């Protein structure tokens, strides 16, 4: 029992989980009904459900981002890909004679995802074939992508009316929001594909030492293509959820700054931006921390103008707690405690 606890304390997930629990605690103190989940019309409602539903797009992108970061890359274009996929879906729905027909919605969704696939192949092409540094390679699509989305929407905010499409963002299935299913689906797909096969290990090896893994026969080029494509696919799905939630495609604001939230979620989850070892569970917790943070701002009643400062404070605290320096300090503190209580060396 004690050993298990010690192992948990020293694990990478300890501080993110503590942070999440602290945020929950703050919420409960400020708003006693925080954990209450009510059933209305057979659907679940409550703060926790809101966190899961609103956090789903960030989680989906963060899962894709985790794999990209594990290869020592980064994808800044995910926000722009969100905007593009939303714009594609909405423009198809608007152009169709019957936007409420499930077939039309399926075509719109599949086309949007296909466009996301193309965006991912593009990023993968720049990074793996041309060898451009990932931050710059994806910066190109980040800049141009919003322009492409505006080109599709012709500079307008496209509002659509299609109940089957709305289900993606705001609908329920067996009482649980559809967005949550999508988040779980993407997470499980990524986890099974990379952790039940050798894929995850190969991705990590490319991230740790590209040259060594190339010489060991790992086909880095194919892997890079795969992770950037997967990340863009995730972004396209997240873009569909975001768009379906508001039923409007806004080329300028859909998924704005979501790349920063996703990267933050990955890092809070304990994955290093230097590539290599990654933790999908950590990313899940990181995404929940970020979304809970947003909720906390509302429940505690922090004025909107101070939101950014609050976010900066939380990010700083989490990073400082996770830092090796702090871990070391805690370690020597525990050792001294043990000494003082006589469990350590039988000192005088």
């Amino acid at each position: 029992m004690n050993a298990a606890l010690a192992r948990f304390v020293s694990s990478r997930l300890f501080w993110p989980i503590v942070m999440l629990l602290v945020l929950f605690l703050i919420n409960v103190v400020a708003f006693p009904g925080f954990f209450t989940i009510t059933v209305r019309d057979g659907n679940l409602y409550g703060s926790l459900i809101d966190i899961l539903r609103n956090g789903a797009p960030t989680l989906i992108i963060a899962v894709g981002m985790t794999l990209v970061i594990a290869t020592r890359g980064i994808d800044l274009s995910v926000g722009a890909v969100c905007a593009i996929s939303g714009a594609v879906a909405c423009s198809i729905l608007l152009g169709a004679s019957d936007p409420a027909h499930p077939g039309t919605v399926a075509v719109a969704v599949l086309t949007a995802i296909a466009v996301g696939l193309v965006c991912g192949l593009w990023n993968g092409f720049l990074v793996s074939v041309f060898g451009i540094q990932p931050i710059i390679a994806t910066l190109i699509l980040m800049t141009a992508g919003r322009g492409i989305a505006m080109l599709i929407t012709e500079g307008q905010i496209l509002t659509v009316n299609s109940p089957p499409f709305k289900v993606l963002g705001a609908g329920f299935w067996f009482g649980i929001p559809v967005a949550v299913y999508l988040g779980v689906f993407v997470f499980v797909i990524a986890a099974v594909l990379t952790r039940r096969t050798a894929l995850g290990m190969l991705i990590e090896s490319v991230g740790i030492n590209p040259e060594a893994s190339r010489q060991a026969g790992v086909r880095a080029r194919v892997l890079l293509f795969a992770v950037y494509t997967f990340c863009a696919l995730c972004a396209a799905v997240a873009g569909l959820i975001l768009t379906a939630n508001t039923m409007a495609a806004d080329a300028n604001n859909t998924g704005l700054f979501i790349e920063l939230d996703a990267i933050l979620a990955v890092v809070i989850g304990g994955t290093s931006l230097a590539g290599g070892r990654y933790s999908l569970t950590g990313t899940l917790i990181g995404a929940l921390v970020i979304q809970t943070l947003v909720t906390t701002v509302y429940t505690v009643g922090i004025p909107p103008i101070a939101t950014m400062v609050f976010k900066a404070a939380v990010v700083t605290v989490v990073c400082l707690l996770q830092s090796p320096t702090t871990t070391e300090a805690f370690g020597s503190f525990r050792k001294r405690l043990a000494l003082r209580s006589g469990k350590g060396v039988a000192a005088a």
Partner: protein
Amino acid sequence: MTISLAPAPAPSRSPLQRASGGIRGTFTSPKYGPVLVTLILFVAVFVGGGIRYPGFFSGQVLLNLLVDNAYLIVLAVGMTFVILTGGIDLSVGAVVALSTMIAASLLQSGWPAAAVIPLILVATSALGLLVGLMVHHFKVQPFIATLAAMFLARGLCYIISQNSISITDPTFIALGVGRIPLGGGMSITPSVIIALVVVAVAVWVLHRTRFGRTVYALGGSEHSGMLMGLPVARTKVLVYVISGLCSGIAGVLFSLYTLSGYPLTAIGTELDAIAAVVIGGTLLAGGYGFVLGSVLGVLVLGIIQTIISFEGTLSSWWTKIFIGALLLVFIVLQRVLTARRR
């Protein structure tokens, strides 16, 4: 910039072969190649623009690149120091916005410009110091530490004011709209002088001081630097202080340029600065790069903007696509031209 050719190959080859080998060596060397290619592409774009648009091929267009991008040059200089050590600074855009907000709000409440400007520089350097300490002593990844600083700076902007504040201080206006004639109908602003002084100081520091050598050494290999007894901790913290200081100077220049403070200003400027540094041939992994290359990178971004304004009829979305496309062409050409033939 001086360009030294690679050492001459085996003496048995003819002088012509030797020369071409030397030139190819310069192009493909990680040190000079990208800078040289950027320079050539810049000249090519400038000549191409001159052929396509009447009135493009003038000294004032070239000088306006400096006038309009003085603040970005200073930002890119600070960013170069950070990237040379293998770090990155995402906070610079938000710090520029914060500087404009501090300047505008303090000037509005009657502070003299002579007190406001030093205060801004101290404040932004202090923020840089905090980031540096976080990066070095707590081993927080630079991307994240500076991301937190970005949120903090942007948040402080909102706390100062949510609205745009205009600057009416006579010193700022004089510095902002004043023109220094250069003869031939050409002129520059005082900001350009400040930016060029910053560049000169940075070049001197990087190439003529012990600190500068340590910066390059850290980018090459931090571990080796430590084993050689270089002051790793001090240098690593100092580059973030320098980046903070440069962001402060850039913020002052930006408030001279716009004569207002606005919390939402300069969003995404950090990416412009990073792009400029990378286009200028600095490796994001650290170790290779020049301040003058980064200046060239800023000029490239500037000339892309100039071409768009000369084109005139582009809608806002085509502008974005065009910027992305030109950035792509530049980076791909740079890669192709500097690619080592195996």
